[in-house]
């Protein structure tokens, strides 16, 4: 007996269906296709970032799975600038709301690093000092809650404060925060000595190369996508450095 995956033994063959009904089915299917064809094409409309709900609401929505909700929100927030059919520059996002979302995600999943990576390397890189400060402050506050785990993001904040914002006192404050709040066992020597780089006025490219190179060599980055992301940044910086030295 032939095997018919879509026909059970109880079913009768197709020719048993009245011809009129077969034609009607085909006709209506065509009608639906034609209907769809003449409908206006959907237009992309950017929606703004919604206000953060209360933590209690998010905890309820998590149905006892806060980490799963946090991971889902990570991806949702990350792709918010790429809404269907439209791309919104990061600087057009509502940063106080963005910070609220990052904060809530981190509360749902305190051991996750995603919100800090996003704050440091996505939203914190917009050429807007106000928005950058907002992200740096978020990283600083969250670093103080778990310095041993979150120092890499604080180290990045030091460089942004020093070279992008040109705010030496702020960079020193952040660098000292790493020294004061971490132990030798928690953070490598170079990270705890960042205030020296800040004070000696090392160039941004060189300092960032040391930071990224240190992070990559530390073996702490294990995710392929993150490794690729950071290596790309490192290559980009090295390329820029090469061009600069040739010009000089």
């Amino acid at each position, binding site marked *: 007996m032939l095997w018919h995956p879509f026909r059970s033994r109880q079913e009768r063959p197709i020719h048993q269906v009245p011809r009129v009904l077969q034609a009607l089915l085909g006709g209506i299917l065509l009608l639906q296709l034609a209907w769809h064809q003449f409908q206006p094409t959907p237009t992309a409309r950017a929606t703004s970032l919604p206000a953060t709900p209360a933590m*209690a609401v998010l*905890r*309820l929505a*998590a*149905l*006892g*799975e*806060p*980490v*799963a909700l946090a*991971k*889902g929100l*990570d*991806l949702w927030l*990350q*792709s918010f600038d790429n809404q269907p059919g439209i791309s919104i520059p990061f600087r057009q996002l509502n940063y106080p709301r963005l910070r609220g979302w990052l904060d809530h995600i981190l509360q749902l*999943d305190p*051991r*996750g*690093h*995603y919100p800090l*990576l*996003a704050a440091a390397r*996505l939203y914190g890189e917009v050429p807007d000092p106000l928005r950058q400060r907002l992200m740096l402050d978020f990283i600083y506050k969250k670093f103080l809650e778990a310095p041993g785990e979150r120092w890499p993001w604080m180290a990045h904040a030091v460089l942004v404060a020093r070279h992008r914002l040109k705010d030496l006192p702020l960079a020193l404050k952040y660098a000292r925060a790493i020294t004061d709040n971490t132990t030798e066992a928690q953070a490598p020597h170079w990270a705890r000595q960042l205030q020296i780089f800040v004070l000696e006025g090392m160039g941004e490219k060189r300092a960032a190369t040391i930071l990224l190179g240190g992070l990559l060599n530390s073996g702490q980055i294990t*995710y*392929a*996508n*993150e490794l690729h*992301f950071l290596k790309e940044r490192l290559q980009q910086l090295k390329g820029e450095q090469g061009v600069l030295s040739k010009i000089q």
Partner: protein
Amino acid sequence: MKRHYRAVFSIARYTALEALRTRYGWLLLMALLACLGVALFSGQIAITESRQIQAVLAAALLRLAMVFLLAIFVITSVQREFSDKTIELAFSLPLPRAAYYLGKLAAYSLVAILSVLPACLLMMFLSPVAPALYWSLSLMLELLIVCAASLVFATGLSQPTSAISALLAFYLAGRSIAAFQLIAHGPLARHDELSQRAFSTLIDGLAYLLPDLDRFSRSDWLVYGHGGWEQIGVQAGQALIYLLLLSAVALFDLYRKNL
């Protein structure tokens, strides 16, 4: 007595066969593949923690899908017996009603346990072996509770829509009751108001009655390794107590049922 055991076994056997014939296994496979697809896709778009995101999202989705599929299978299977009058035939035999119930529960429990095996393999692919094993054991215990609850609602309520709605309400309440308690006793609650106190008491009362399902099959076990035999032991205790409670409720209702 021996005849009753054989009857229980026969009822269990034919009920389990029904799972095969209604293609429950295919549905489960589809759900597993869909969850794997979502997990792989989310891992592709994540910049960091991609393995964690894959494991956690797959686990959360799989848990919901398996609970939903099992509940629908149990409820429609029992409701079909009511519609076909098979249950009347079974109750007219010289058998205690408990034998019918135990046969059904045994079969559905077997289906629940077998359903967890492919889920366990999938999670072992997405996360370390030991956490995946703990998560799967916890999911199995959760599914056993869902199984028994579905049986209670299916036998107690005459309409499938009512039974499915009741089961969903029970399950969602079981998973969110801890969050409700935190809100009811949180700093924003006005403890001096009578209505607020009554609400808090009601929530606390419900928490006593419901199983704390938010402690079961936690996806954070897969990424942070929080799970272990101690938690599994506690959950097994809760599952055992709740299975006994639900069985007592179902039998109480079945013995009172006038066909």
